[in-house]
């Protein structure tokens, strides 16, 4: 009989080893899955993990990694602060959309003014849009005790309607011959988030790195970060320590909303270029996985965001080159999360083989 036994304290070695083991287990079982589909497993794994980084066309894929990874990391960092405190913002996708809309709106309001302050104002607008959208579940929770999971999630669908309405109405390109969608900000130099387009470098990448450092310092060196961790570990002890739960909810939801809004703004002012009906592609939801894959640790999230971007891009290559079905790629990504969460158990528990005595 296998018995799980709680460790006296979490094992540091295991908490470092489990992500690596999870990736290895995913490769093995993913390989089996691909083999069952009649593909060469080694080739499939190589296509997903190796080709985007070091393959023949890596010069094209590497910038893509930054473009895909940056919004994931930026959003996941914000989410992780709340998740650590047990405050569940599931609506980052909505905050991402609102940030993109408000940020783009600020830029479009100045069009075609060419001034240095246009882009900084857009950044502020984007952060503010995401923040306001996250304040709705925050204030409802503090004031009326509503469930922030439900409210923030439902607001995603409101934001999507808003996005459709904006691309068809208020923000529609006046010179767009009636097609839905705003002006393309890539054609408006003062409102552009690219630093070096060919390298995939835009201000969102820089913001993601700054956010990682900021979160690391906050969590490890600052009282507020300590209170966030304390609230997640032991809410009563946190109150005893003097944490004001309402203020913490407002802070955590606010900062995750603002970061998601920023991610939206950088996306719309760079890789996407314009507000369109199908602007959002699920970064806000994938970031939840990234946050957990990185075990809510800033550096872990940075690595996880990279890994997630890798499986996306590698998955696309595998689809086009090897003809793997999209569903198989999704199963593969699901396996990664599954193995990580399952192996996570070993951080806090050890497995013992228990021999049952004959009575």
């Amino acid at each position, binding site marked *: 009989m296998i018995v799980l036994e709680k460790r006296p*304290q979490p094992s540091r070695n295991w908490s470092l080893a489990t992500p690596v083991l999870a990736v290895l287990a995913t490769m093995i079982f993913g390989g089996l899955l691909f083999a069952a589909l009649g593909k060469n497993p080694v080739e499939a794994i190589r296509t997903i993990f190796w080709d985007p980084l070091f393959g023949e066309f890596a010069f094209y894929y590497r910038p893509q990694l930054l473009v895909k990874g940056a919004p994931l990391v930026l959003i996941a960092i914000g989410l992780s602060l709340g998740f650590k405190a047990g405050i569940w913002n599931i609506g980052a996708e909505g905050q991402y959309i609102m940030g993109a809309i408000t940020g783009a709106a600020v830029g479009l309001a100045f069009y075609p003014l060419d001034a240095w302050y246009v882009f900084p104002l857009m950044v502020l607008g984007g952060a503010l849009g995401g923040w306001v959208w996250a304040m709705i579940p925050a204030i409802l929770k503090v004031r009326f005790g509503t469930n922030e999971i439900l409210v923030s999630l439902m607001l995603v669908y409101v934001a999507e309607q808003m996005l459709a309405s904006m691309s068809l109405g208020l923000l529609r390109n006046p010179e767009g011959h009636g097609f839905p969608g705003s002006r393309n900000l890539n054609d408006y130099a003062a409102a552009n988030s690219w630093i070096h387009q060919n390298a995939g470098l835009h201000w969102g990448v820089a913001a993601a790195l700054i956010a990682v450092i900021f979160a690391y310092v906050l969590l490890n*060196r*600052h*009282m507020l970060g300590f209170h966030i961790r304390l609230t997640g*570990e*032991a809410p009563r*002890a946190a109150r005893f320590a*003097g944490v004001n739960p309402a203020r913490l909810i407002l802070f955590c939801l606010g900062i995750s909303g603002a970061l998601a809004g920023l991610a939206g703004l950088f996306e719309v002012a760079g890789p996407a270029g314009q507000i369109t009906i199908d602007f959002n592609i699920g970064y806000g939801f994938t970031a939840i996985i990234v946050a957990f894959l990185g075990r809510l640790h800033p550096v872990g999230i940075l690595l996880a965001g990279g890994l997630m971007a890798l499986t996306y891009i590698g998955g696309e290559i595998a689809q086009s080159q090897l003809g793997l079905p999209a569903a198989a790629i999704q199963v593969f990504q699901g396996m990664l999360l599954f193995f990580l969460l399952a192996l996570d158990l070993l951080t806090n528990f050890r497995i013992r083989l228990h021999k049952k005595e004959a009575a």
Partner: protein
Amino acid sequence: MTSPLLSLQGLTKAYPGVVANSNVSFDIATGQVHALLGENGAGKSTLVKMIYGLVQPDNGVMLLNGQPYAPAEPRAARADGIAMVFQHFSLFDALNVAENIALGMERPPAMRDLAARIREVSETYGLPLDPYRTVGDLSAGERQRVEIIRCLLQDPKLLIMDEPTSVLTPQEVDILFETLRKLKSEGTAILYISHKLEEIRALCDHATVLRLGENVGECIPAETSARDMAELMVGSTLQPPERAERDLGEVALDISGLSVPAPGEFGTSLNNLHMTVRQGEVLGIGGVAGNGQDELLGVLSGEILTLPEAVRLNGQAVGNLGPTARRRLGLLTAPEERLGHAAAPDMTLTENAMLTGSVRRRLESRGFLRWRDARGFAEKIIQDFDVRTPGPENAARSLSGGNLQKFVIGREVLQDPQVLVVNQPTWGVDASAAAAIRQAILDLAAHGAAVVCISQDLDELMEISDRFAALNEGRLSTPRDTAGLTIDEIGLMMGGAHGMEVAHV
């Protein structure tokens, strides 16, 4: 000598890193009240868990009426006539007495028959109890009756009682003892676990003393002094705390007209509390658990806010200030629940030192944390309070209850408080650690701090407090000087027998 009811022979049980029981042997005779005595962590709980089938021994055998006895689970133990009343009740507040009892039965009879059986058994043993009352409304003593009756319905041959008097007033203890004597006279053996020596001397026929998992001696309690038993239990001579003569100063903590609504459905509301504590004084607050102790601590720590004037610290109204502001002013508290309230279980001792120490020990500057200083503070607590742990980077949950308690009390004492409020400072702590904690509290008072000690351990309160008051159903009795108080007076301040009828046997 007649053959014993239950004979334990060489029982051994080891957990990873600790031997809970090592080669323990003793016999329990039919109709005997047998005391199992030992400090916390001596292995009493593990031993009775083996008898009750919750844990299987690694080695050794048990004989019940001469037959091999190896219960695989509590159900098997119950089938063999062994019942147990746990220290912590497993009752559902929202259900009534009969429903609670039915839940624990294999094949519960119809509710009306069960209620009749409950009435019958409860009256036979002098434990009056209405089967249709909701458990949430019962006092601790009455809840214990529910547990006892649940056991008696199985007609046990051996009844195991784990620290049964820790939640009772002295009057309630008397009622319980009458019941146990009646059971004994009918031939039921009782295994009575306790560390309260006077009780054991009054009740038990025979005592087995455990220390560090081993049987270190047996005695006839009535013929042995409490002091001898204590020394057998601890393995060394005990130092009673010393109290220095001291002058009382100004009023440091002043509570007047404090009323707070109950925080939850089964919480207790506080009604019009008045008390003052002067510098250098220890005020003991007794009372059975659940009569407002947690709420009182919350009000003093700042977790529950009140009108500003209800709580005054050195004359300043602080009732509306949160925990951090109160710490800054010198009002420190140590809650009862160590894991999850006083300390975060999965965090290190350094982090837990930061938890309350940041303000007064200057462990932060402008919001940024000084981890090196926090570590130094944690090390100082560990050293000054003899906390047994490999180091400050260990998680709080890896410490034993007594060691964590020393850490929690030490953390507050070393912050040089003007007023210290402790709730159950020695609950679940072994005798030597408890003595150290009490000494620390007295030393603090000797240096001019005002101390409020909330506790259910009356001996402790008599030992350390200058004045005594009791919480009963959210009301506080008028504090009285401890010197000269009799146990009867204390019992009445605590609410007497809470309206429980005395056993008529």
